[in-house]
């Protein structure tokens, strides 16, 4: 464990150095990221100018799940995307060998190579939205903040595990270079209450590909619409999916034949 924390620390330091080497770039991307976050909020505000609620969610209530998704997106695009999109390329070019031959867990290595620190603004805006969502709905308490923290960790792990399993299939379908795009774009589903979908899709998005529990389940719990015990659902799912992603990666590696010389 200590070895992996040290390794991640190195990656983190390198990312800071890389970002600070081009400070203007860093600042411009921070601004771009803030603008996208604003657009996201304005989008829902305009919808709610036309309709009173989205499946019972007013704008004040929506701020909370939107904050969750904002934080999740900061992890997805900042910590995961750069790594995930490189995996199919590595398989194609045979670069994966480089990671397999190192004395560390290959799943850890291929998942932690790149860090996009410019997504820090997204992360901070997400935290602000969650705090504001808790305050405006009068549910700001230590208990709810704990729920938020647990739910956020579970959502990040669930997202990582599902995405990693999808990308792992590139060991068989190496020509599908855009396979890494599937998950981050599908997370868009999590921005909406699952009740907008038909019953069949609602089932899929709750139990099969659990987008519904990434943002709206924790918000439901915190806003007292659902029992706090439901938080164990995402935690259990995160544990199982993380384990499955590890097993699936090892299984896939047995079918991997290198393309390098």
């Amino acid at each position, binding site marked *: 464990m200590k070895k992996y924390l040290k390794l991640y620390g190195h990656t983190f330091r390198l990312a800071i150095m890389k970002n600070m080497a081009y400070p203007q770039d860093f600042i411009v991307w921070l601004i771009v990221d803030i*603008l996208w976050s604003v657009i996201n909020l304005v989008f829902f505000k305009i*919808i709610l*100018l*036309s309709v009173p609620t989205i499946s019972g969610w007013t704008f004040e209530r929506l701020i909370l799940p939107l904050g969750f998704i904002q934080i999740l997106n900061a992890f997805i695009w900042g910590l995961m995307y750069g790594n995930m999109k490189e995996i199919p390329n590595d398989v194609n070019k045979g670069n994966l060998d480089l990671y397999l031959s190192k004395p560390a867990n290959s799943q850890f290595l291929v998942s932690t190579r790149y860090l996009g620190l410019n997504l820090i603004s997204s992360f901070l805006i997400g935290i602000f939205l969650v705090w504001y969502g808790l305050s405006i709905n009068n549910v700001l308490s230590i208990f709810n903040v704990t729920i938020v923290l647990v739910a956020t960790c579970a959502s990040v792990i669930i997202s990582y595990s599902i995405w990693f399993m999808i990308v792992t299939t590139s060991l068989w379908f190496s020509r599908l*270079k855009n396979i890494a795009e*599937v998950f981050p774009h599908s997370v868009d*589903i999590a921005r909406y209450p699952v009740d907008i979908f038909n019953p069949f899709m609602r089932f899929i998005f709750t139990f099969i590909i659990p987008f519904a529990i990434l943002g709206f389940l924790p918000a439901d719990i915190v806003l007292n619409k659902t029992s706090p015990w439901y938080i164990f659902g995402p935690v259990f799912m995160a544990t199982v999916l993380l384990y499955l992603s590890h097993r699936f990666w090892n299984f896939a590696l047995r079918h991997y034949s290198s393309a390098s010389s």
Partner: protein
Amino acid sequence: MRKYFAIAKAEWLDALQTRGEIFIWLFLETLPIFIMGSLWSTNKSTIPNFSTSQLVTYYVAILITSRLTGHYFDEGMQKEIKEGTLSRFLVKPIKFPLANIPQNLGGKAFNTIFLLVPVLVIIISIFRNQLIIPSPQILFFFLLSLVPAFFIQYSISVLVSSAAFYWEQSYSMVHIKWMMESMIGGYLLPLTLYPNWARIVTDFFPFKYVFFVPAAIFAQRLNFSEIGLNILYSTLWAFVLFYIGDVVWKKGLKEYSSVGG
């Protein structure tokens, strides 16, 4: 003319080479329409100005418009300018950046047959009870509105690409373009849902002629005099932007320098 046809053919062959990726794009293209269709369908009793059918049809039209008029060369071209590899295009006996048009059409021909048509079949089967089938007359005006939209998109991409001649952080301009298209172009939401003051702001930019106007024609939200007037404005914008794009590009080329053989 033969050389431009060869460029289009090369792009078609290139798209054919990566045809496996079509399945993923198919999914990603269907997803937003599915989400927005589901969102508006759940609020069908409360939307003012727009019927649910018109809204669902609007998003289908946005998909068709985006597929048939989109230009995606700006990001790549900026990279060529920054890395100095643009020179390889400049020494060829072709007009540049005009050569992007046949290249774009070659890719579009492939994508229309293998991507757009299957996506439309899926969407129509999901929302078959809610879609408005346009009359031949409306379809004609819709397709007519796509011609200036195509050239507006092209010219904006030339302008965004040209930013790389002058500005180190020009990659962010691509995001600014996407933001403008999303919010004031009507890509995310029909502009008629916006408050009055915001709608007035959109009138000062060309983006609404790229997405909102063609989609509103398709969804039968405009009468014939409005259609005529909007197509006229759209054509004027196309001419003006084409000219500005040409001037800015030529000026930028004077700033451009590269090394290497």
